[in-house]
C-alpha cells in the first residue's frame, strides 16, 4: 500500500492537515499512537488522572467547548460534517464582592464606568488583533531571502497595519511586548475582571501577568472566535472530513522513526511494531522536540537545530482536575465558565510559587460543568509546576487537590461537601500520556521569541524541516497553541505548495 502523505499524530491539527491534503486529492494515512483520535481534545483513557491504582472515567485534557479558526472551519466545510453553529460561552469571574459576568465585549456586575472601560478595551484589542489575524492563516514570512510572494504578502500586511491609523499603530507597538498586568491595571483597575483576563492571557504557559510579552497571547486569543463546540462534536466533524476525502486513520500505531532516503528526502515512517509505511510527504503533529530529536534523529540535523529543539521553552504549568459531584452547584449555570482569579495579584502570586518549583498556595483556575450521569466539574488549575520539588508524590497531588477544592469552595460555597471523587492530570502526567515535553499543551511556550517566524524556532518556522518532504504541523508551529487548527492547515498548504514547485 502506498500513500501520498502520512500524518503522524491524530490531534486536531493532524486531522486538519490530513483533511486539507485529502481535499487536494492526496491519499493520506493518519497514524495515532493512542487508542483514539483527538489528542488533548480526544476521549481520555479510563482511569487517567486517578493516581496510582485508581479508577475513574478519566480526565479529558481539553474539556472546554472550543472552536477552530474560521479559515479552517470554512476551508474544510466542517458545517457539512455536523459541526453546528457553536455556542457562545459566558465567563463568570468570581470575586469576593460578587461575580462579574463577561460576554464578548460586555461586563455585568461591575460599576458602569468599569463596564464602559472594558467594552472600550475589548474593542481596542480586537481592532489591534486584526492585523495579527492576517498572519495567522498562512506560513510566516521568512527571516531572510524572501521571495516575491512573501514580499507581496508582507506589503499587504504592512498596509493592514497602516490602516490601523497612527494612534492605534502607536498603541499596538506600545503594548505588544509589554506585560498584561500593566495593560489591564491601566485600563480596568484591579479586580475579578482584570484577574480573569490576566488568567486567560497566561493560561497554559510559564509566564505570570507581570512577565513581558503576555499581551501578545491575549491579542492572539482575541483574534479567534468567541464561540465553542463540545470537543466530541469538533473531533467528530474533523474525522468525517478526513474520511470524506479518503483519508485513513489508524490508531494504536505509535511511530518510532521517520524514514529518510539516501537522497535526503523523507520516505515514510516506521512504527514501533516495525511496520513501515511509505510516502513522499510526512507531516508530524508531534511536539517539535520529539519530531526532531526523536522521530527524525539528530544524525539528520545540524547541531544548531538540535540545540534549538533541545532548549526551546516548553515548561507547561497547567493541571487538569476533574471533580465528581453529588449534585450540581446552583451558583454555576451549565454552559458558563467560572474563573477564580479574583485579582491580578492572585495570578502573579500563583505564578511566583511555581516559578521556584513549588505548588501555588492558592491556584487560579477555570471550571466548567460537564453534564452526564455523574456530573463533573472540569477544572484547569494554573500555575502548577511540571515537577514540584523534583517529582510528584501522592502527597503533593493531594495538596494540589485540596487547594483547588478550597479555592472553588470559596467561589461555589458548599462545593467541598459535594465532591465524591477527584482525578488529576499534572503537567507530568500530560507529558507521559500525550508525549508532550514539559507537559506543555501549546507544544512550546507562547512567547515573543517563540512566535511567528520564530515558532518553534528559526530555520523550521515555515513548517518545512531540513529533510525534504518533512513538515511540522502541530501546535509547536505558527500560529501555535490553543485550539485553532491553523498550524495543521498552514502546514498542509505549505507542503502542497512545495510539492507543486517540485513537479
Amino acid at each position, binding site marked *: 500500500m502506498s500513500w501520498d502523505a502520512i500524518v503522524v499524530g491524530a490531534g486536531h491539527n493532524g486531522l486538519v492537515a490530513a483533511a486539507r491534503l485529502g481535499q487536494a486529492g492526496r491519499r493520506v494515512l493518519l497514524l495515532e499512537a493512542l487508542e483514539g483520535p483527538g489528542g488533548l481534545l480526544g476521549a481520555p483513557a479510563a482511569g487517567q488522572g486517578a493516581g496510582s491504582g485508581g479508577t475513574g472515567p478519566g480526565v479529558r485534557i481539553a474539556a472546554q467547548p472550543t472552536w477552530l479558526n474560521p479559515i479552517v472551519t470554512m476551508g474544510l466545510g466542517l458545517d457539512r460534517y455536523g459541526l453546528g453553529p457553536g455556542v457562545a460561552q459566558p465567563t463568570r469571574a468570581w470575586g469576593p464582592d460578587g461575580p462579574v459576568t463577561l460576554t464578548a465585549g460586555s461586563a455585568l456586575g461591575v460599576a458602569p464606568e468599569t463596564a464602559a472601560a472594558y467594552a472600550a478595551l475589548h474593542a481596542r484589542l480586537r481592532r489591534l488583533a486584526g492585523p495579527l489575524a492576517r498572519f495567522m492563516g498562512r506560513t510566516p514570512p521568512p527571516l531572510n531571502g524572501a521571495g516575491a510572494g512573501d514580499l507581496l504578502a508582507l506589503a499587504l500586511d504592512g498596509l493592514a497595519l497602516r490602516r490601523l491609523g497612527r494612534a492605534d499603530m502607536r498603541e499596538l507597538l506600545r503594548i505588544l511586548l509589554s506585560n498584561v498586568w500593566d495593560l489591564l491595571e491601566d485600563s480596568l483597575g484591579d479586580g475579578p475582571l482584570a484577574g480573569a483576563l490576566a488568567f486567560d492571557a497566561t493560561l497554559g504557559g510559564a509566564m505570570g501577568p507581570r512577565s513581558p510579552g503576555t499581551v501578545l497571547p491575549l491579542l492572539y486569543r482575541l483574534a479567534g472566535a468567541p464561540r465553542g463546540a463540545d470537543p466530541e462534536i469538533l473531533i467528530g466533524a474533523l474525522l468525517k472530513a478526513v474520511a470524506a476525502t479518503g483519508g485513513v486513520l489508524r490508531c494504536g500505531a505509535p511511530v518510532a522513526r521517520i524514514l529518510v532516503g539516501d537522497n535526503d528526502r523523507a520516505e515514510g515512517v516506521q512504527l514501533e511494531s516495525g511496520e513501515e509505511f511509505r510516502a513522499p510527504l510526512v507531516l508530524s503533529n508531534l511536539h517539535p522536540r520529539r519530531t526532531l530529536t526523536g522521530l527524525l534523529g539528530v544524525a539528520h540535523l*545540524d*547541531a544548531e537545530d538540535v540545540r534549538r529543539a533541545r532548549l526551546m521553552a516548553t515548561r507547561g504549568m497547567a493541571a487538569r482536575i476533574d471533580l465528581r459531584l453529588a449534585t450540581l452547584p446552583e451558583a454555576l449555570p451549565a454552559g458558563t465558565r467560572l474563573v477564580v482569579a479574583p485579582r491580578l495579584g492572585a495570578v502573579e502570586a500563583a505564578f511566583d510559587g511555581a516559578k521556584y518549583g513549588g505548588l501555588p498556595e492558592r491556584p487560579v483556575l477555570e471550571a466548567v460543568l460537564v453534564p452526564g450521569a455523574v456530573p463533573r466539574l472540569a477544572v484547569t488549575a494554573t500555575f502548577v509546576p511540571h515537577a514540584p520539588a523534583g517529582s510528584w508524590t501522592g502527597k503533593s497531588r493531594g495538596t494540589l487537590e485540596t487547594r483547588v477544592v478550597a479555592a472553588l469552595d470559596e467561589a461555589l460555597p458548599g462545593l467541598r461537601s459535594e465532591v465524591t471523587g477527584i482525578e488529576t492530570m499534572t503537567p507530568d502526567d500530560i507529558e507521559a500520556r500525550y508525549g508532550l515535553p514539559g507537559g506543555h499543551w501549546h507544544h512550546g511556550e507562547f512567547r515573543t521569541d517563540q512566535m511567528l517566524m520564530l515558532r518553534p524556532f528559526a530555520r523550521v518556522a515555515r513548517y518545512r524541516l531540513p529533510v525534504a518532504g518533512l513538515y511540522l504541523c502541530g501546535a509547536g508551529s505558527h500560529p501555535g497553541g490553543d485550539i485553532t487548527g491553523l498550524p495543521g492547515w498552514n502546514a498542509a498548504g505549505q507542503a502542497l505548495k512545495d510539492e507543486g514547485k517540485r513537479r
Partner: protein
Amino acid sequence: MTPAIRQPEPLGLVPGPFHDRIAALNRQQGWTGWMGHASPTVLDTVEFEYFAIRNGTTLFDISPMNKYRIAGPDAEAVVNRLVTRDIRKLKPGRVAYAIWCNAEGNVVDDGTVFRLAPNEFRLCCQEPQLGWLDDVAWGYDVTITDDSAAIAALAVQGPTSCAVLKAAGLAGVEELKPFDIRSFRVETHDIMVSRTGFTGDLGYELWMAPGAALGLWDRLMEAGRVRGIRAIGYAAVEMARIEAGFLLPRVDFLSSQTHLRPGRARNPYELGLDWLVALDKPHFNGRRALLALSRQRPARRLVTIEIDRDKPAHHAFVYHRKRREVGFVTSALWSPTVKRNIACAWIEAPWVQDGGDLWVEIYRQRELTWNRRMARARIVERRVFDSARRRATPPADF
C-alpha cells in the same frame, strides 16, 4: 556526557609550560596574548628566526592551542558529523587538516584532527570549541574533554628538525611520513610526535605532559646546538605560514562564531577549501547548505597574489585596471626565500576568473610622509613556498 570545564585562570597572561626557557631567551621581551598565555612575538630578531625555520631548526611553543579529546563508541560518528572531510578514511595514527561549518555552510574554524585510536580523536584548533563540540555531540555516546591545559605542545620545524629529534633520542622519527603520529619514550616521559606544522617545511609537533616540557626543551637545545636550533616567536611563524599558503582565522577570514555583522562569515568555496568538503558522505553539519553553495559560483575568493617590486602590500586594496576596487589584502609579505612579493587577498568573483589587469595600491611611509603606488598583481598558486623537504621520507640527515 558531561564535558570537563577548564578551571578559571588567574588574571592576565599566564606562563605556559615552556615559559621559563623562553623568557630567558627573550631578549626583546616581546610577548603577545594567545588564548590567555604569554606567547613570544620576537625573541631576538625576526630575520634570524625566520631564516632558522628555513635553514635550521626552530622551537615554537604551541601549547596555547585548544586541544580537545573526543573519545567513545560514537567518536568517529561525532567527528565525521563535525568536520566536512570524510573522517572515516582517516586511519588511527594519522592526522588530517579539516574545517567545520555551521548550518549555513560558513566556516566555524579550522584545525587538525588526530586519530589516536579507532575510537579516540584529538582536535587542535585556534578558537575555543567546547560549546560547539558539545552541541554537535549531543545524542551520541562520546566523552569530550578539554585537554588544552593538560597537554604541552612544541613545534619543532625546519630542515634539520628530524636530525635534531634523532639526536635527542627519538630514534625512528625519520620513518614518519607527513601526517603520521608516533609515540616515543624519552627518559621517563611519553612524547607523542606528529609530522605536522604551520611552516610548509619539514617539521614536527611534539605533544607531552606539561611536566615533561622543560626537560625535553633542554634535550632538544643540546641536540640542536650544532644543527642551527633557535627558539622563535610568532612573527617568524607568520612569515612562514604566508609563504606556505596556510590561512589564519581572524586575519584571513572570520569564524562564523566571531563575526557580528551579517555577511562577514565565509564558506569553504570562497576560501578555496573545496577539497576539504566531502559532499558524498552522510549528513554532517552544514551539508545541505554546502550542497547548495557548491552549485553556485562563490561571490568572492581568497587567493594568493604576486605583486611587482618588493614592497609588501599590507592593508592594500586590489583594483581592476587601476580604477575599480575589486578586493583587499589580508596578509602580505616579501618572501625572503622565494624572493617574491606575495599577499593573501579577497577578490570578487568576476575578477578572479578574469585574472588580468589587477593592481594593488601600496602605502608606504618614509620619515612620516606617506606615499602610494600602484603595482601590478597576478593570481598565483596558494603555496608559494613548496619544498620537497616537506614530503621527503626519510628527511635529509644533518
